[in-house]
């Protein structure tokens, strides 16, 4: 086992462990969505670090070069992270709009009574 593999195993296992722990114990900030995201991103990294031959088998089966495969994988992670950030921002905006509309509605009502 190479150092590169060991580092990846430790990192991916830590992320998976804390995501599981956070979700099961319902800690603040560890939502179902975060749990699912962690699982999708870190489980393949963990599995491929423990069984590196698996990547070669998959690459061969798919008929792709190893470098291209890695590039696509990294690309997916980036796109996913950007999407995640955007969705979060939109949700935050929606929440703020609702809060503004609610405050306006309650203030108008209070003025009348």
């Amino acid at each position, binding site marked *: 086992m190479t150092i590169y593999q060991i580092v990846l195993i430790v990192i991916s296992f830590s992320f998976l462990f804390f995501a599981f722990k956070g979700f099961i114990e319902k800690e603040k900030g560890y939502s179902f969505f975060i749990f699912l995201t962690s699982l999708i991103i870190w489980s393949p990294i963990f599995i491929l670090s423990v069984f590196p031959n698996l990547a070669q088998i998959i690459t061969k089966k798919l008929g792709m070069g190893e470098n291209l495969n890695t590039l696509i994988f990294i690309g997916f992670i980036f796109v996913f992270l950007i999407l995640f950030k955007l969705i979060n921002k939109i949700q935050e905006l929606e929440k703020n*709009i*609702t809060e503004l*509309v*609610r405050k306006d*509605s*309650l203030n108008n*009502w209070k003025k009348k009574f």
Partner: protein
Amino acid sequence: MSNNRIWIVIPVFNEANVILKVIQEIKKAGYQNIIVVDDGSSDDSFHKLKKTNVVLLRHKINRGKGAAVKTGIEAIKILGADIAITVDGDGQHNPNDIKNMLEKINQNYDVVLGTRLTNPQGMPWYKIIANYIGNFFTWIIYGLWVTDSQSGFRAYSKNALKKIDTQTDRYEYDSEIIKEIYRNKLKYTEIPIEVRYTDHSMNKKQKQGFINGIKTILKMILSN
């Protein structure tokens, strides 16, 4: 408990055809404290409601059923409510069921959930299936199994009103309440309710259809 501290909260969005009848029925059942939140209706709902003696609030733009119910609940907290009953504005709920809900609240339950599925007579088959799917996702995402996670006919005690803090705006609100029951360890029960599916409620544009159902599930996942 006197009816003075019991408030009926009705979220309304484009219900001009039925809303006056809904209010009339509730009053006839003996409940005079009614708060209506018009959620940015583009029809005549708001003007019709202005002629009634209900407490009326208005969202300037449409923010969804959940947002409207939350605004109503914030308002009745200011009015010193002890019990809140949420009723849909399309007339599908029978106000005569309110007394059964109040009985349970008086038995020290924090939340009473009206359920359509113990007696789904007259309920279209696709709504029954959609409800089971909603229940399944509510259980997976929020951790509590209930027989009707999408029902809007519910009663809340003062303790529940104090503790429940929802963040979602649209139909996912009904499921988020289940999460809040679980999170705050509130004592809850379910009681069968009658649902009247009318042409009006079945043909509403803003009803929870298949695509909206998928959106609701996605929002439940994202907001959790």
